[in-house]
């Protein structure tokens, strides 16, 4: 029974070029890209319209960006450990990644308070509102990433994540790196356009 199943499985792999779930994740990422492409285009259009408040981006955003890069490094380390079947390391890696992400949340919050200290509020000139919307919407997607991490963590607890069953953690890693890249894009966009 087992063997025939494996043969079936092998035949399936030959027909399919991409895993359907992974592909769906990439499409989901494309739709998020379009969401932020829309928002950042709106930013450019609005800016060219005039009546635009100039202000300096708080340095805290730079630090938080570095912290988020760190969490991506942790995530990737976790992924490599899963390939080696070091499940305890995987559990630790996921915890560390999520922990760093929570620090990132806090630092984004601090950045907002810095903005408020500069008299840039959510309610006011759109140039300031956009910063809050971009960072807030990114955090909302990061919450999704945290839920995904939790799912992978629970999978690891029940031995469903290992070198022969990498799908969940691979997808989680992809999404996590994407969220990191997305924030770097948003940060650079805001710094360069403000």
């Amino acid at each position: 029974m087992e063997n025939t199943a494996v043969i079936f499985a092998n035949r399936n792999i030959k027909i399919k070029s991409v895993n359907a779930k992974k592909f769906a994740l990439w499409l989901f990422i494309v739709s998020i890209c379009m969401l932020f492409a829309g928002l950042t285009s709106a930013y450019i259009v609005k800016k060219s319209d005039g009546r635009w408040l100039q202000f300096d981006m708080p340095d805290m955003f730079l630090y938080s960006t570095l912290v988020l890069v760190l969490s991506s490094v942790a995530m990737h380390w976790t992924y490599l450990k899963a390939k080696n079947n070091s499940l305890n390391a995987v559990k630790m890696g996921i915890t560390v990644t999520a922990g760093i992400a929570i620090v990132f949340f806090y630092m984004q919050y601090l950045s907002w308070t810095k903005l408020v200290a500069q008299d840039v509020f959510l309610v006011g000139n759109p140039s300031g509102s956009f910063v809050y919307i971009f960072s807030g919407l990114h955090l909302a997607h990061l919450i999704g990433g945290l839920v995904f991490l939790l799912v992978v963590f629970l999978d690891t607890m029940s031995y469903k994540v290992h070198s022969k069953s990498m799908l969940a953690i691979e997808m989680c890693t992809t999404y996590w790196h994407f969220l990191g890249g997305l924030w770097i894009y948003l940060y650079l966009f805001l710094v360069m356009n403000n």
Partner: protein
Amino acid sequence: MSITDIQVTDELVHDDDHNEEHHEQSFIFKYIFSTDHKTIAKQFLITGIFWAILGGGLSVIFRLQLGFPDMDMGFLQPFLGDWISNSGKLDPEFYLAMITMHGTIMVFFVLTAGLSGTFSNYLIPLQLGARDMASGFMNLLSYWFFFLSSVIMFISMFLSTGPASGGWTIYPPLSALPQAMSGSGMGMTLWLVSMVFFIASTLLGGINYITTVINLRTEGMTFRRMPLTIWAFFITAILGLLSFPVLVACVLLLVFDRSFGTSFYLSEIFIGGEALPNLGGSPILFQHLFWFLGHPEVYIVILPALGITSEVISTNSRKPIFGYTAMIGSILAIAFLSFIVWAHHMFITGMNPFLGSIFMFLTLIIAIPSAVKAFNYITTLWKGNLVFTPAMLFSIGLVSFFISGGLTGLFLGNAAIDINLHDTYFVVAHFHLVMGSAAFFGLLAGVYHWFPKMFGRMMDEKLGYIHFWLTFVGVYLVFFPLHYIGIAGFPRRYYSFTNFDAFSSFVDLNSFVTVAAIITFGAQFIFLFNFFYNIFKGKKAPSNPWNSNTLEWTTPRIPEHGNWPGDIPKVYRWPYDYSKPGAKDDFIPQTVPYHQTKESNTDFENEESKKEQSAS
């Protein structure tokens, strides 16, 4: 280690195990929370029909107001309550609410969810030779998000302040300021909430359609052998995936403006003699974001209908579709162009005339792929052995609307002429023909054509013919006069024209349009009877009633969960081998290998047949 091995196989074998494990499902999981693509398709269809009746009903009521402004509408009081005054007059604010709801319902709930939702779900797995969608669960979510969105929109129609009333395009500042009109209050909020769920539904569905087309085609089903229906659904799903997130961005900023006091779309507004604090925003920004979705949305509506038409016309002309590659090329070209023409909705926003001429140029280019499609339909029909099934008639009707409505697009696409025609009934006539009625006819053609596979029974042809002629003639009688009214300068969305002397000569024409609209709407009940009666009482359908080539007709009369009882069929040829010279029958299904049809093979196909034999 053996445990882990089993888990690996569990994941991978998933697609093939349906036929072995047949288990009885409870009613709830079989018909309500089903993950089967066929059931979900029917759910989309029935919900779409419900919305179509409602959306069409609203249009009849506001046509009554336009055609017979002095009429006593007291008889509608049982339905509309306080929206009809005691003297029998329709409330002007509710008039605006009705046109808003009519637009929203028709564009999103009927022609996006009802059309793509039904036929993408139903046909993609069946025509590609897949057991089901890539993810049944996502598909289930897609429908139930749509359902939730429908419920919210439906509830909004019963608010005492009325549903959203700023037009389906919800332009701010009107839609952004609750104090601007009663419909911009709770009704608008519910509209936005409903649309968020709707977008989630569309994205879940779209991701699923694309993944299924890429990953789950059966052996031999190359992209060049896909039916044009699938091509159309595939490209439609990509359009949705790229454009709906931008609507999220657009709506999100509007939500912040409405509920949190930001000023993305608002600046320097006085309302009721009072200055608002908002500074620095721009309502034009909204239009840019909205139409970046809004224009592709038009093609999200029409492309599936064009795909269905390709299939139906080819089958019922007993001829291969003319220009298969050109058809795919024109779908791709239309899809690409749809993203770079959005500003033609905004010619009168004070945009730079130079920019306007660029958008005009790009807009007029769309005429080329559209004309390619129209040409190909006509050349497919040319000298075919036409079989006039109701589906065929509706497809030909679509081609007619697509051409006559498309011609007026050339006028409206011109920045200079659009200044005169913008927001008049000319625009209303244009889009109701080219995308409204055309897409609706595509939807009906699809229902008539695939009804036997959906429900295992036949619809009544005679009733189908009556339905077609009344609707076809009715649609022209409704929308053709609107061109004249539009050129005369009637602005759309106005409650009444009796105050303007210039328009008094058009009173009769408006009454005529209203009568035609009522007849057309009434004719749809023939369809409803035909549809619902024959689900239960229709003649039992043969498994391939139209002698068609595509894979869905190789399934049993009523396909079970998993679609094919045995192995998934393999595909050896393209889907349009109708009336092939030398062939025994006038159709050769996609599952027939070339080595079985020596008598009709071309040289190239004989080469293929040798490869087939050496492979097996």
